[in-house]
Protein backbone atom coordinates (compact mmCIF):
# COMPACT_ATOMS: atom_id res chain seq x y z
CA UNK A 1 0.00 0.00 0.00
CA UNK A 2 1.40 3.42 -0.92
CA UNK A 3 0.80 6.99 0.18
CA UNK A 4 -2.12 7.91 -2.08
CA UNK A 5 -4.04 4.75 -1.19
CA UNK A 6 -3.17 5.16 2.49
CA UNK A 7 -4.44 8.77 2.54
CA UNK A 8 -7.60 7.75 0.68
CA UNK A 9 -8.27 4.93 3.18
CA UNK A 10 -7.77 7.38 6.07
CA UNK A 11 -10.07 10.07 4.69
CA UNK A 12 -13.36 8.99 6.32
CA UNK A 13 -11.68 8.77 9.75
CA UNK A 14 -9.89 12.09 9.30
CA UNK A 15 -13.17 13.77 8.30
CA UNK A 16 -14.76 12.50 11.49
CA UNK A 17 -11.81 13.63 13.66
CA UNK A 18 -11.02 17.01 12.05
CA UNK A 19 -14.32 17.95 10.35
CA UNK A 20 -14.05 19.70 6.96
CA UNK A 21 -11.89 22.69 6.07
CA UNK A 22 -8.22 23.59 6.77
CA UNK A 23 -7.72 21.02 9.58
CA UNK A 24 -8.84 18.19 7.30
CA UNK A 25 -6.70 19.49 4.46
CA UNK A 26 -3.59 19.63 6.70
CA UNK A 27 -4.29 16.18 8.14
CA UNK A 28 -4.74 14.63 4.67
CA UNK A 29 -1.65 16.38 3.29
CA UNK A 30 0.65 14.98 5.97
CA UNK A 31 -0.33 11.45 4.91
CA UNK A 32 0.78 12.03 1.31
CA UNK A 33 4.43 11.70 2.37
CA UNK A 34 6.28 8.69 0.94
CA UNK A 35 4.77 5.46 2.32
CA UNK A 36 5.11 1.90 1.06
CA UNK A 37 4.34 -1.26 3.01
CA UNK A 38 2.57 -4.60 2.84
CA UNK A 39 -1.18 -4.09 2.15
CA UNK A 40 -2.36 -6.40 4.96
CA UNK A 41 -0.01 -5.05 7.63
CA UNK A 42 -0.87 -1.52 6.47
CA UNK A 43 -4.18 -2.14 8.26
CA UNK A 44 -2.33 -2.18 11.59
CA UNK A 45 -0.61 1.11 10.77
CA UNK A 46 -3.93 2.59 9.56
CA UNK A 47 -5.62 1.69 12.84
CA UNK A 48 -2.72 3.01 14.89
CA UNK A 49 -2.60 6.30 12.92
CA UNK A 50 -6.34 6.83 13.42
CA UNK A 51 -5.86 6.32 17.18
CA UNK A 52 -2.90 8.72 17.21
CA UNK A 53 -4.84 11.35 15.19
CA UNK A 54 -7.70 11.06 17.71
CA UNK A 55 -5.22 11.59 20.56
CA UNK A 56 -3.85 14.69 18.82
CA UNK A 57 -0.40 13.40 17.85
CA UNK A 58 1.71 15.98 16.02
CA UNK A 59 2.74 15.72 12.35
CA UNK A 60 6.37 14.90 13.17
CA UNK A 61 5.39 12.11 15.58
CA UNK A 62 3.05 10.60 12.96
CA UNK A 63 5.72 10.86 10.26
CA UNK A 64 8.34 9.13 12.45
CA UNK A 65 5.90 6.41 13.46
CA UNK A 66 4.95 5.57 9.85
CA UNK A 67 8.57 5.68 8.68
CA UNK A 68 9.67 3.42 11.53
CA UNK A 69 7.01 0.79 10.86
CA UNK A 70 6.62 0.66 7.09
CA UNK A 71 9.90 -1.17 6.43
CA UNK A 72 9.53 -3.91 9.08
CA UNK A 73 5.82 -4.37 8.25
CA UNK A 74 6.74 -4.71 4.59
CA UNK A 75 9.35 -7.35 5.37
CA UNK A 76 7.09 -9.29 7.77
CA UNK A 77 4.11 -9.15 5.43
CA UNK A 78 6.09 -10.19 2.35
CA UNK A 79 7.70 -13.08 4.21
CA UNK A 80 4.55 -14.35 5.94
CA UNK A 81 1.67 -13.70 3.55
CA UNK A 82 3.39 -13.77 0.13
CA UNK A 83 6.29 -16.05 1.03
CA UNK A 84 4.51 -18.63 3.18
CA UNK A 85 0.69 -18.49 3.44
CA UNK A 86 -0.03 -17.96 -0.27
CA UNK A 87 2.38 -20.74 -1.45
CA UNK A 88 1.07 -23.10 1.24
CA UNK A 89 -2.52 -22.68 0.02
CA UNK A 90 -1.46 -23.02 -3.64
CA UNK A 91 0.56 -26.18 -2.98
CA UNK A 92 -2.25 -27.69 -0.89
CA UNK A 93 -4.49 -27.77 -3.99
CA UNK A 94 -1.84 -28.08 -6.72
CA UNK A 95 -2.01 -31.87 -7.12
CA UNK A 96 -5.80 -31.77 -7.21
CA UNK A 97 -5.84 -29.03 -9.85
CA UNK A 98 -3.41 -30.95 -12.02
CA UNK A 99 -5.63 -34.03 -11.92
CA UNK A 100 -8.72 -32.07 -12.95
CA UNK A 101 -10.59 -31.43 -9.67
CA UNK A 102 -12.71 -28.41 -10.58
CA UNK A 103 -13.04 -27.26 -6.94
CA UNK A 104 -9.27 -26.74 -6.52
CA UNK A 105 -8.98 -23.06 -7.63
CA UNK A 106 -12.06 -22.07 -5.58
CA UNK A 107 -10.79 -23.87 -2.49
CA UNK A 108 -7.55 -21.88 -2.80
CA UNK A 109 -9.43 -18.61 -3.38
CA UNK A 110 -11.83 -19.20 -0.47
CA UNK A 111 -8.94 -20.01 1.84
CA UNK A 112 -6.96 -16.95 0.87
CA UNK A 113 -9.93 -14.55 1.02
CA UNK A 114 -10.61 -15.81 4.57
CA UNK A 115 -6.96 -15.11 5.49
CA UNK A 116 -7.02 -11.74 3.68
CA UNK A 117 -10.14 -10.35 5.30
CA UNK A 118 -9.46 -11.92 8.69
CA UNK A 119 -5.90 -10.59 8.83
CA UNK A 120 -6.90 -7.07 7.81
CA UNK A 121 -9.76 -6.95 10.34
CA UNK A 122 -7.61 -8.27 13.20
CA UNK A 123 -4.66 -6.04 12.36
CA UNK A 124 -6.80 -2.91 11.97
CA UNK A 125 -8.46 -3.58 15.32
CA UNK A 126 -5.07 -4.18 16.96
CA UNK A 127 -3.79 -0.89 15.58
CA UNK A 128 -6.86 1.02 16.82
CA UNK A 129 -6.52 -0.55 20.25
CA UNK A 130 -2.73 -0.18 20.66
CA UNK A 131 -2.01 3.10 18.85
CA UNK A 132 1.75 3.75 18.73
CA UNK A 133 2.38 0.54 20.75
CA UNK A 134 1.14 -1.65 17.87
CA UNK A 135 4.75 -2.47 16.95
CA UNK A 136 5.14 -4.47 20.18
CA UNK A 137 1.97 -6.44 19.42
CA UNK A 138 3.20 -7.26 15.91
CA UNK A 139 6.57 -8.47 17.24
CA UNK A 140 4.82 -10.79 19.73
CA UNK A 141 2.99 -12.47 16.86
CA UNK A 142 6.37 -13.68 15.53
CA UNK A 143 5.29 -13.60 11.87
CA UNK A 144 8.83 -14.27 10.67
CA UNK A 145 9.08 -17.39 12.84
CA UNK A 146 5.74 -18.65 11.56
CA UNK A 147 6.85 -17.89 8.03
CA UNK A 148 9.85 -20.25 8.46
CA UNK A 149 7.64 -23.01 9.85
CA UNK A 150 5.04 -22.68 7.12
CA UNK A 151 7.75 -22.79 4.45
CA UNK A 152 8.76 -26.23 5.72
CA UNK A 153 5.15 -27.26 5.17
CA UNK A 154 5.39 -25.80 1.67
CA UNK A 155 8.42 -27.98 0.92
CA UNK A 156 6.57 -31.14 2.06
CA UNK A 157 3.50 -30.27 -0.03
CA UNK A 158 5.76 -29.47 -3.01
CA UNK A 159 7.38 -32.91 -2.83
CA UNK A 160 4.00 -34.61 -2.44
CA UNK A 161 2.52 -32.58 -5.31
CA UNK A 162 5.39 -33.41 -7.66
CA UNK A 163 5.17 -37.12 -6.81
CA UNK A 164 1.41 -37.19 -7.47
CA UNK A 165 1.89 -35.27 -10.76
CA UNK A 166 4.53 -37.79 -11.92
CA UNK A 167 2.35 -40.72 -10.81
CA UNK A 168 -0.48 -39.36 -12.97
CA UNK A 169 1.78 -38.94 -16.03
CA UNK A 170 1.61 -41.12 -19.18
CA UNK A 171 5.09 -42.61 -18.63
CA UNK A 172 3.96 -46.25 -18.49
CA UNK A 173 2.33 -45.84 -21.92
CA UNK A 174 5.68 -44.51 -23.21
CA UNK A 175 7.44 -47.65 -21.94
CA UNK A 176 8.97 -45.94 -18.89
CA UNK A 177 8.25 -47.75 -15.57
CA UNK A 178 6.43 -45.54 -13.08
CA UNK A 179 9.12 -45.91 -10.42
CA UNK A 180 11.79 -44.80 -12.92
CA UNK A 181 9.79 -41.69 -13.87
CA UNK A 182 9.39 -40.87 -10.17
CA UNK A 183 13.05 -41.34 -9.38
CA UNK A 184 14.22 -39.44 -12.46
CA UNK A 185 11.76 -36.61 -11.89
CA UNK A 186 12.78 -36.22 -8.25
CA UNK A 187 16.50 -36.18 -9.00
CA UNK A 188 16.01 -33.76 -11.91
CA UNK A 189 13.97 -31.40 -9.73
CA UNK A 190 16.72 -31.33 -7.09
CA UNK A 191 19.36 -30.73 -9.76
CA UNK A 192 17.44 -27.93 -11.49
CA UNK A 193 16.74 -26.37 -8.09
CA UNK A 194 20.48 -25.96 -7.68
CA UNK A 195 20.58 -24.15 -11.04
CA UNK A 196 17.69 -21.96 -9.90
CA UNK A 197 19.61 -21.02 -6.78
CA UNK A 198 22.52 -20.00 -9.00
CA UNK A 199 20.24 -17.54 -10.82
CA UNK A 200 18.77 -19.55 -13.71
CA UNK A 201 15.26 -18.11 -14.16
CA UNK A 202 12.19 -20.39 -14.36
CA UNK A 203 11.20 -18.88 -17.76
CA UNK A 204 14.58 -19.87 -19.22
CA UNK A 205 14.12 -23.44 -17.96
CA UNK A 206 10.67 -23.53 -19.61
CA UNK A 207 11.96 -22.26 -22.94
CA UNK A 208 14.94 -24.64 -22.77
CA UNK A 209 12.49 -27.48 -22.10
CA UNK A 210 10.32 -26.34 -25.05
CA UNK A 211 13.31 -26.21 -27.41
CA UNK A 212 14.59 -29.66 -26.36
CA UNK A 213 11.14 -31.29 -26.37
CA UNK A 214 10.09 -29.88 -29.74
CA UNK A 215 13.43 -31.04 -31.21
CA UNK A 216 12.89 -34.53 -29.79
CA UNK A 217 9.28 -34.57 -30.90
CA UNK A 218 10.15 -33.60 -34.46
CA UNK A 219 12.82 -36.30 -34.77
CA UNK A 220 11.73 -39.19 -36.99
Amino acid at each position, binding site marked *: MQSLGFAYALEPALRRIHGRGPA*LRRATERHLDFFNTHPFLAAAILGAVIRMEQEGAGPEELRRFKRALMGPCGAMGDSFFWGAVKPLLVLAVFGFALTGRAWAPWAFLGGFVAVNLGARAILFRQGLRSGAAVAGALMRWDLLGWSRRLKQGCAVLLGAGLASALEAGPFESWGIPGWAALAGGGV*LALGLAQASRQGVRAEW*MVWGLVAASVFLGMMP
Partner: protein
Amino acid sequence: MSETTLVLALSVLGGVVFLDRTALVQTMISRPLVSGTLAGYLAGAPGAGMVCGALLELLWLFDLPVGTSVPPDESTAGVVGGAVAAVLAGDWGPAAAAGVGVAAGCVAGILGGRADVWVRRWNDGLVPRAREALAAGRLDGVGRFHWLGVARFFGVGVAVSLVGVGAGRWGAWALADLGPGLRAGFELVGVSLPVVGAAACLGGLRSVRARGWFVAGFAAVGAGPRLLLWTREGAPWRS
Protein backbone atom coordinates in the same frame (compact mmCIF):
# COMPACT_ATOMS: atom_id res chain seq x y z
CA MET B 1 -19.21 -16.04 -28.96
CA SER B 2 -17.10 -14.77 -31.85
CA GLU B 3 -13.32 -14.82 -31.57
CA THR B 4 -13.19 -10.99 -31.44
CA THR B 5 -15.69 -10.84 -28.59
CA LEU B 6 -13.83 -13.60 -26.80
CA VAL B 7 -10.48 -11.79 -27.10
CA LEU B 8 -12.06 -8.58 -25.80
CA ALA B 9 -13.69 -10.42 -22.89
CA LEU B 10 -10.36 -12.08 -22.04
CA SER B 11 -8.64 -8.69 -22.19
CA VAL B 12 -11.13 -7.24 -19.70
CA LEU B 13 -10.47 -10.24 -17.46
CA GLY B 14 -6.77 -9.48 -17.90
CA GLY B 15 -7.36 -5.90 -16.77
CA VAL B 16 -9.27 -7.04 -13.68
CA VAL B 17 -6.63 -9.54 -12.58
CA PHE B 18 -3.81 -7.03 -13.33
CA LEU B 19 -5.57 -4.69 -10.86
CA ASP B 20 -6.05 -7.41 -8.26
CA ARG B 21 -2.37 -8.37 -8.41
CA THR B 22 -1.13 -5.30 -6.52
CA ALA B 23 -3.23 -2.17 -7.08
CA LEU B 24 -6.60 -3.15 -5.60
CA VAL B 25 -7.90 -5.56 -2.96
CA GLN B 26 -5.57 -8.52 -3.73
CA THR B 27 -8.17 -11.24 -3.37
CA MET B 28 -5.82 -13.53 -5.38
CA ILE B 29 -8.13 -13.97 -8.38
CA SER B 30 -4.95 -12.74 -10.04
CA ARG B 31 -3.15 -16.01 -9.25
CA PRO B 32 -2.68 -18.10 -12.43
CA LEU B 33 -4.59 -21.01 -10.87
CA VAL B 34 -7.71 -18.83 -10.73
CA SER B 35 -7.09 -16.46 -13.68
CA GLY B 36 -6.13 -19.39 -15.93
CA THR B 37 -9.29 -21.28 -14.95
CA LEU B 38 -11.44 -18.19 -15.59
CA ALA B 39 -9.77 -17.62 -18.97
CA GLY B 40 -10.26 -21.27 -19.86
CA TYR B 41 -13.90 -21.04 -18.80
CA LEU B 42 -14.48 -18.01 -21.06
CA ALA B 43 -12.71 -19.80 -23.93
CA GLY B 44 -14.75 -23.00 -23.49
CA ALA B 45 -12.11 -25.21 -21.81
CA PRO B 46 -11.96 -24.55 -18.04
CA GLY B 47 -10.05 -27.76 -17.35
CA ALA B 48 -7.25 -26.81 -19.76
CA GLY B 49 -7.08 -23.34 -18.22
CA MET B 50 -6.91 -24.80 -14.72
CA VAL B 51 -4.09 -27.23 -15.56
CA CYS B 52 -2.12 -24.49 -17.35
CA GLY B 53 -2.70 -22.13 -14.43
CA ALA B 54 -1.59 -24.75 -11.90
CA LEU B 55 1.67 -25.28 -13.80
CA LEU B 56 2.28 -21.53 -14.13
CA GLU B 57 1.74 -21.15 -10.36
CA LEU B 58 4.90 -23.05 -9.54
CA LEU B 59 7.22 -21.03 -11.76
CA TRP B 60 7.21 -17.79 -9.74
CA LEU B 61 5.50 -18.88 -6.51
CA PHE B 62 8.37 -17.74 -4.29
CA ASP B 63 9.45 -14.77 -6.42
CA LEU B 64 9.05 -11.59 -4.39
CA PRO B 65 9.89 -8.08 -5.57
CA VAL B 66 13.20 -7.25 -3.90
CA GLY B 67 15.01 -4.02 -4.65
CA THR B 68 15.01 -3.37 -8.41
CA SER B 69 14.08 -6.96 -9.38
CA VAL B 70 10.53 -7.16 -10.72
CA PRO B 71 8.91 -10.61 -10.85
CA PRO B 72 7.02 -11.56 -14.02
CA ASP B 73 3.33 -10.76 -14.06
CA GLU B 74 1.75 -14.08 -13.20
CA SER B 75 -1.80 -12.72 -13.52
CA THR B 76 -1.49 -11.87 -17.23
CA ALA B 77 0.48 -15.10 -17.72
CA GLY B 78 -2.50 -17.05 -16.32
CA VAL B 79 -5.05 -15.33 -18.59
CA VAL B 80 -2.91 -15.69 -21.74
CA GLY B 81 -1.84 -19.25 -20.87
CA GLY B 82 -5.41 -20.37 -20.16
CA ALA B 83 -6.71 -18.71 -23.33
CA VAL B 84 -3.98 -20.34 -25.46
CA ALA B 85 -4.35 -23.80 -23.85
CA ALA B 86 -8.09 -23.70 -24.58
CA VAL B 87 -7.37 -23.43 -28.34
CA LEU B 88 -5.50 -26.75 -28.41
CA ALA B 89 -7.12 -28.73 -25.58
CA GLY B 90 -9.65 -30.52 -27.80
CA ASP B 91 -7.25 -31.74 -30.52
CA TRP B 92 -3.89 -31.94 -28.73
CA GLY B 93 -4.97 -33.18 -25.29
CA PRO B 94 -4.44 -31.53 -21.90
CA ALA B 95 -0.68 -32.06 -21.50
CA ALA B 96 0.33 -30.67 -24.90
CA ALA B 97 -2.16 -27.79 -24.61
CA ALA B 98 -0.78 -26.93 -21.17
CA GLY B 99 2.76 -27.03 -22.58
CA VAL B 100 1.90 -24.44 -25.24
CA GLY B 101 -0.12 -22.39 -22.73
CA VAL B 102 2.71 -22.20 -20.22
CA ALA B 103 5.24 -21.24 -22.90
CA ALA B 104 2.94 -18.43 -24.08
CA GLY B 105 2.20 -17.47 -20.48
CA CYS B 106 5.92 -17.05 -19.76
CA VAL B 107 6.23 -14.51 -22.58
CA ALA B 108 3.12 -12.68 -21.41
CA GLY B 109 4.40 -12.70 -17.83
CA ILE B 110 7.64 -10.95 -18.82
CA LEU B 111 5.75 -8.30 -20.84
CA GLY B 112 3.23 -7.81 -18.04
CA GLY B 113 6.04 -7.35 -15.50
CA ARG B 114 7.58 -4.57 -17.62
CA ALA B 115 4.16 -2.95 -18.03
CA ASP B 116 3.67 -3.06 -14.26
CA VAL B 117 6.91 -1.13 -13.70
CA TRP B 118 5.94 1.41 -16.39
CA VAL B 119 2.48 2.11 -14.95
CA ARG B 120 3.89 2.51 -11.40
CA ARG B 121 6.30 5.14 -12.72
CA TRP B 122 3.43 6.82 -14.56
CA ASN B 123 1.40 6.89 -11.32
CA ASP B 124 4.29 8.43 -9.35
CA GLY B 125 3.17 11.81 -10.70
CA LEU B 126 -0.24 11.53 -9.05
CA VAL B 127 0.88 12.33 -5.48
CA PRO B 128 2.17 15.86 -6.35
CA ARG B 129 -1.06 16.50 -8.26
CA ALA B 130 -3.10 15.37 -5.22
CA ARG B 131 -1.09 17.81 -3.04
CA GLU B 132 -1.76 20.66 -5.49
CA ALA B 133 -5.47 19.83 -5.47
CA LEU B 134 -5.53 19.90 -1.65
CA ALA B 135 -3.59 23.18 -1.57
CA ALA B 136 -6.18 24.65 -3.97
CA GLY B 137 -8.92 23.63 -1.51
CA ARG B 138 -10.23 20.63 -3.47
CA LEU B 139 -10.71 18.10 -0.68
CA ASP B 140 -11.79 15.37 -3.12
CA GLY B 141 -8.37 15.51 -4.81
CA VAL B 142 -6.96 12.46 -3.03
CA GLY B 143 -9.92 10.30 -4.02
CA ARG B 144 -9.92 11.47 -7.63
CA PHE B 145 -6.21 10.80 -8.18
CA HIS B 146 -6.35 7.49 -6.31
CA TRP B 147 -9.04 6.24 -8.70
CA LEU B 148 -7.16 7.69 -11.69
CA GLY B 149 -4.18 5.57 -10.68
CA VAL B 150 -6.45 2.51 -10.41
CA ALA B 151 -7.95 3.25 -13.84
CA ARG B 152 -4.46 3.46 -15.37
CA PHE B 153 -3.58 0.05 -13.95
CA PHE B 154 -6.78 -1.38 -15.41
CA GLY B 155 -6.17 0.17 -18.84
CA VAL B 156 -2.60 -1.09 -19.05
CA GLY B 157 -3.71 -4.56 -17.91
CA VAL B 158 -6.36 -4.66 -20.64
CA ALA B 159 -3.85 -3.53 -23.28
CA VAL B 160 -1.21 -6.12 -22.31
CA SER B 161 -3.79 -8.90 -22.21
CA LEU B 162 -5.23 -7.83 -25.57
CA VAL B 163 -1.81 -8.18 -27.18
CA GLY B 164 -0.96 -11.41 -25.33
CA VAL B 165 -4.28 -13.16 -25.89
CA GLY B 166 -4.57 -12.02 -29.51
CA ALA B 167 -1.04 -13.04 -30.49
CA GLY B 168 -1.11 -16.18 -28.34
CA ARG B 169 -4.35 -17.58 -29.74
CA TRP B 170 -3.30 -16.73 -33.30
CA GLY B 171 0.02 -18.55 -32.67
CA ALA B 172 -1.80 -21.56 -31.20
CA TRP B 173 -4.07 -21.84 -34.27
CA ALA B 174 -0.94 -21.74 -36.45
CA LEU B 175 0.81 -24.42 -34.34
CA ALA B 176 -2.21 -26.73 -34.57
CA ASP B 177 -1.63 -27.09 -38.32
CA LEU B 178 2.05 -27.96 -38.08
CA GLY B 179 1.82 -31.69 -37.51
CA PRO B 180 2.01 -34.45 -34.89
CA GLY B 181 5.73 -34.07 -34.17
CA LEU B 182 5.15 -30.67 -32.63
CA ARG B 183 2.25 -32.03 -30.62
CA ALA B 184 4.43 -34.84 -29.25
CA GLY B 185 7.10 -32.31 -28.30
CA PHE B 186 4.65 -30.12 -26.41
CA GLU B 187 3.13 -33.15 -24.72
CA LEU B 188 6.60 -33.86 -23.34
CA VAL B 189 6.78 -30.22 -22.22
CA GLY B 190 3.44 -30.46 -20.44
CA VAL B 191 4.35 -33.68 -18.66
CA SER B 192 7.78 -32.34 -17.61
CA LEU B 193 6.62 -28.92 -16.40
CA PRO B 194 5.83 -30.08 -12.83
CA VAL B 195 9.53 -30.97 -12.47
CA VAL B 196 10.62 -27.51 -13.69
CA GLY B 197 8.04 -25.83 -11.47
CA ALA B 198 9.11 -27.83 -8.42
CA ALA B 199 12.73 -26.91 -9.14
CA ALA B 200 11.84 -23.22 -9.37
CA CYS B 201 9.98 -23.45 -6.03
CA LEU B 202 12.83 -25.29 -4.32
CA GLY B 203 15.24 -22.67 -5.66
CA GLY B 204 13.05 -19.96 -4.17
CA LEU B 205 12.84 -21.69 -0.77
CA ARG B 206 16.60 -21.38 -0.50
CA SER B 207 17.37 -23.60 2.45
CA VAL B 208 18.98 -27.00 2.92
CA ARG B 209 16.16 -27.99 5.27
CA ALA B 210 13.63 -27.29 2.54
CA ARG B 211 15.30 -29.94 0.38
CA GLY B 212 14.97 -32.46 3.20
CA TRP B 213 11.28 -31.69 3.70
CA PHE B 214 10.74 -31.85 -0.08
CA VAL B 215 12.29 -35.33 -0.24
CA ALA B 216 10.16 -36.41 2.73
CA GLY B 217 6.94 -35.29 1.01
CA PHE B 218 8.04 -36.77 -2.31
CA ALA B 219 8.94 -40.11 -0.74
CA ALA B 220 5.72 -40.28 1.30
CA VAL B 221 3.52 -39.97 -1.79
CA GLY B 222 5.84 -41.52 -4.38
CA ALA B 223 7.57 -44.32 -2.57
CA GLY B 224 5.23 -45.02 0.35
CA PRO B 225 2.34 -46.68 -1.52
CA ARG B 226 4.78 -48.39 -3.87
CA LEU B 227 6.82 -49.92 -1.01
CA LEU B 228 3.60 -51.11 0.59
CA LEU B 229 2.59 -52.80 -2.66
CA TRP B 230 6.02 -54.40 -3.12
CA THR B 231 5.96 -55.68 0.45
CA ARG B 232 2.67 -57.42 -0.25
CA GLU B 233 3.25 -58.57 -3.83
CA GLY B 234 7.01 -58.60 -4.19
CA ALA B 235 9.18 -56.11 -6.02
CA PRO B 236 8.69 -56.10 -9.83
CA TRP B 237 12.32 -57.12 -10.54
CA ARG B 238 11.82 -60.35 -8.58
CA SER B 239 8.94 -61.66 -10.75
